[in-house]
């Protein structure tokens, strides 16, 4: 008897598959209240009663006829199970949302002919009691599936039952079950017989699967092209399909187009009827969420509230974070000073204090802001609000050459472009997806935040306009606004030059509002913080160490030269002529070079440069050092408010994140698009920064 088993979790989008996967595996895959959060297959090993079980979590799907890239993962898996019995999992865990049972059974009906043993979980049982909806025993008998279990992923209800059921399935060593699937009437069989015969002559498949496939091919030409047949069989099938359709008279044609869904829903309704199904939620019933939406998606009030919310979020990044930031700042400084006092003087101490602690500490301080931003983003998504934003904004997004579903990637782009780019897979339009990817890096991500905060904190006065708008917060919002507006304008421009390859539309389920699960919010925040700190620990530490050497060497007669004459200084001087028109000196030049790896590195770079330059014993305050830095040539300040603004504008536009380009390469399958991205962003950064600096000079700023 074998000892390794494979189970696949399938179901509609937003039905709770990933939450159940997390419960079984103890992992922390992201869950949310937005259809399509899982975009690729995730696998994990678990042990139930000494049996090794591989658990696969698939993206949600409404049907094996996929409409987007994430759904095609599911289609390809199911099709391979059809064509090759050996690739089939030992069991399917099908997650069905009990509050919406009938539609959840459509995709299920396409899995039944596989005759893989199925365990059905009726999820969301805490909201609706399954026993009030349907007779579970009868339902199980009528579908003839392995088991049906009431479940609640949020209340962990049914988990033990699920585990023992998996164990029971594994132990019975059931390789095939005989599910009760859709049976064609004799007239439909006759209609589909030519298709049936073609498949039957070419492949050894079960009669059930062939019948089901002929029905699916009959109602969709594009689906046929995705199948596992060779091209000559496909051509035969499509020709035969055309021939059948041509002999049918016009009156019949209308019902032929809807044949598959009519038959499937007919089959589902029949089984449900025999299982005492009670449709408790009628079409005319107004749900609580619908009442809330009277305000939140109101045609005028809704968008205003949304924009107000965004403004509140970005202002609060500045307001709420100042206390914890000051705290971390003083912690880093006193830690650095302690280390300084307790280590013998020499190069090693300089490397630790001026290189590593100054560099890494300079970036870690921005953790509170990133946490605050992430917290709001998670709330918007987990409550279900983001689906409403998709609904409200679709029209406006389309005017800009984007798609309603571009909103979620753009919003997550404020945290980091990478998850945003990955989540574009749910967009069914090739063109709109590509445009979304191309403009995403213009959305100010959290790596720009340290740059903005440093520059604003040091050079923008802390005053209030009309006693209400904090100037510092306002400048910050303007930076975010600048990136976002440019992103939309460019989206429009790019979409003029690209042609569509698919038939895009927007068909999306609006889930009920749900209270976010505190544990899930907390775990997402921890994951995100870890990522940031590990990043700080790896990339920034490495760059800080390398930079310290470049700044501290060469040594002449054992003495350090001026930074200006160090290796790093020479590099900075080399590019200074290019960046001087933007108001940047060679020190900022060094920062621009190092920040190509990741934007926040510019902060650690400046921190390291000023710490090495400083002869004193204590760690210096980066803001003060920048304020007091005088250019020896001109006798003027290196940094002025105008220079600070010019730097920020440069960072709004510049292409400075190696990880993003790598992801764009994988997602678009070509080097063309990341190259294009680097090109247009660099040009934009230079031009905009040049314009802002010189316009500022013209207005009389220095």
């Amino acid at each position, binding site marked *: 008897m074998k000892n390794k088993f494979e189970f696949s979790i399938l179901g509609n989008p937003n039905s709770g598959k990933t939450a159940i996967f997390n419960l079984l595996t103890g992992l922390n895959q992201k869950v949310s209240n937005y259809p399509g959060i899982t975009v690729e297959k995730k696998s994990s090993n678990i042990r139930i009663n000494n049996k090794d079980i591989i658990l696969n979590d698939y993206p949600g799907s409404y049907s094996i006829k996929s409409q987007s890239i994430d759904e095609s993962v599911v289609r390809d898996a199911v099709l391979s199970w059809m064509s090759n019995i050996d690739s089939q999992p030992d069991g399917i865990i099908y997650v069905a949302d009990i509050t919406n049972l009938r539609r959840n059974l459509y995709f299920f009906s396409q899995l039944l002919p596989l005759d893989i043993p199925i365990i059905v979980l009726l999820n969301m049982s805490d909201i609706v009691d399954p026993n009030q909806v349907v007779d579970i025993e009868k339902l199980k008998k009528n579908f003839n599936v392995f088991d049906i279990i009431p479940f609640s992923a949020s209340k962990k209800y049914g988990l033990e039952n699920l585990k023992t059921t998996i164990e029971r399935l594994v132990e019975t060593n059931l390789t095939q079950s005989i599910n009760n699937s859709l049976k064609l009437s004799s007239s439909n069989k006759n209609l589909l017989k030519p298709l049936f015969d073609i498949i039957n002559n070419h492949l050894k498949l079960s009669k059930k699967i062939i019948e089901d496939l002929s029905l699916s091919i009959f109602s969709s030409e594009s689906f046929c092209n995705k199948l596992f047949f060779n091209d000559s069989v496909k051509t035969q099938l499509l020709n035969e399909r055309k021939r059948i359709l041509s002999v049918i008279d016009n009156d019949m044609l209308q019902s032929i187009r*809807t044949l598959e869904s009519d038959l499937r*829903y007919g089959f589902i309704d029949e089984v449900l009827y025999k299982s005492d199904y009670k449709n408790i939620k009628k079409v*005319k019933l107004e749900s609580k969420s619908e009442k809330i939406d009277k305000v939140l998606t109101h045609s005028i009030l809704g968008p205003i509230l949304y924009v107000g919310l965004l403004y509140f979020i970005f202002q609060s990044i500045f307001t709420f974070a100042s206390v914890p930031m000051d705290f971390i700042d003083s912690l880093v400084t006193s830690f650095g000073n302690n280390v300084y006092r307790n280590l013998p003087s020499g190069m090693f101490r300089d490397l630790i204090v001026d290189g590593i602690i100054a560099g890494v500490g300079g970036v870690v301080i921005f953790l509170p802001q990133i946490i605050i931003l992430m917290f709001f983003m998670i709330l918007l998504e987990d409550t279900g609000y983001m689906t409403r934003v998709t*609904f409200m904004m679709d029209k406006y997004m389309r005017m800009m050459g984007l798609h309603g579903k571009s909103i979620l990637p753009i919003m997550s782009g404020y945290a980091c472009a990478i998850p945003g780019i990955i989540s574009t897979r749910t967009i069914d339009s090739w063109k709109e997806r590509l445009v979304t990817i191309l403009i995403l890096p213009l959305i100010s991500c959290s790596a720009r935040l340290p740059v903005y905060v440093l520059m604003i904190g040091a050079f923008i006065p802390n005053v209030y306009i009309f006693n209400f708008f904090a100037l510092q917060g306002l400048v910050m919002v303007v930076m975010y606004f600048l990136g976002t507006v440019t992103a939309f304008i460019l989206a429009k421009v790019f979409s003029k030059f690209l042609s569509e390859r698919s038939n895009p539309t*927007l*068909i999306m389920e609006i889930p009920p509002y749900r209270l976010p699960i505190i544990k899930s919010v907390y775990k997402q925040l921890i994951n995100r913080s870890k990522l940031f700190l590990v990043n700080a620990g790896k990339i920034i530490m490495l760059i800080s160490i390398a930079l310290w050497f470049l700044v501290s060497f060469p040594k002449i007669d054992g003495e350090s030269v001026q930074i200006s004459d160090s290796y790093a200084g020479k590099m900075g001087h080399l590019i200074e002529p290019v960046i001087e028109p933007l108001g940047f000196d060679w020190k900022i030049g060094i920062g621009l070079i190092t920040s190509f790896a990741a934007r926040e590195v510019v902060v650690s770079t400046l921190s390291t440069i000023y710490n090495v330059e400083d002869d004193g014993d204590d760690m210096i305050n980066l803001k003060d050092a920048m304020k007091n830095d005088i250019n020896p040539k001109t006798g003027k300040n290196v940094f002025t408010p105008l220079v600070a603004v010019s730097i920020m504008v440069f960072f709004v536009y510049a292409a400075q994140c190696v990880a993003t380009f790598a992801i764009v390469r994988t997602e678009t399958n070509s080097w063309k698009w990341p190259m294009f991205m680097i090109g247009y962003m660099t040009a934009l950064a230079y031009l905009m920064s040049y314009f802002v600096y010189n316009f500022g000079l013209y207005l009389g700023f220095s």
Partner: protein
Amino acid sequence: MKTLYSLNNNSIAKISHFGDLKSMTRLLEMGMISGAKVRLIKKTPFGGPVQVKINDYYLILRKEDATKIYIVNSNEK
């Protein structure tokens, strides 16, 4: 003939048949089949998408799809 898009907010109708729809397959799979009852919840301005309730859940679809779904009156108020 009346289409889904021509419905007033909060009124219920039955789906009768479909015009030439690009995205018909997905709508059918989602339960928008003939005979199904739908209630129009709201339309977004400037010809944006509409929200409907079908069976027991809420769905949004674009105007160009909603104008090609033909409806008949339902006896339900």
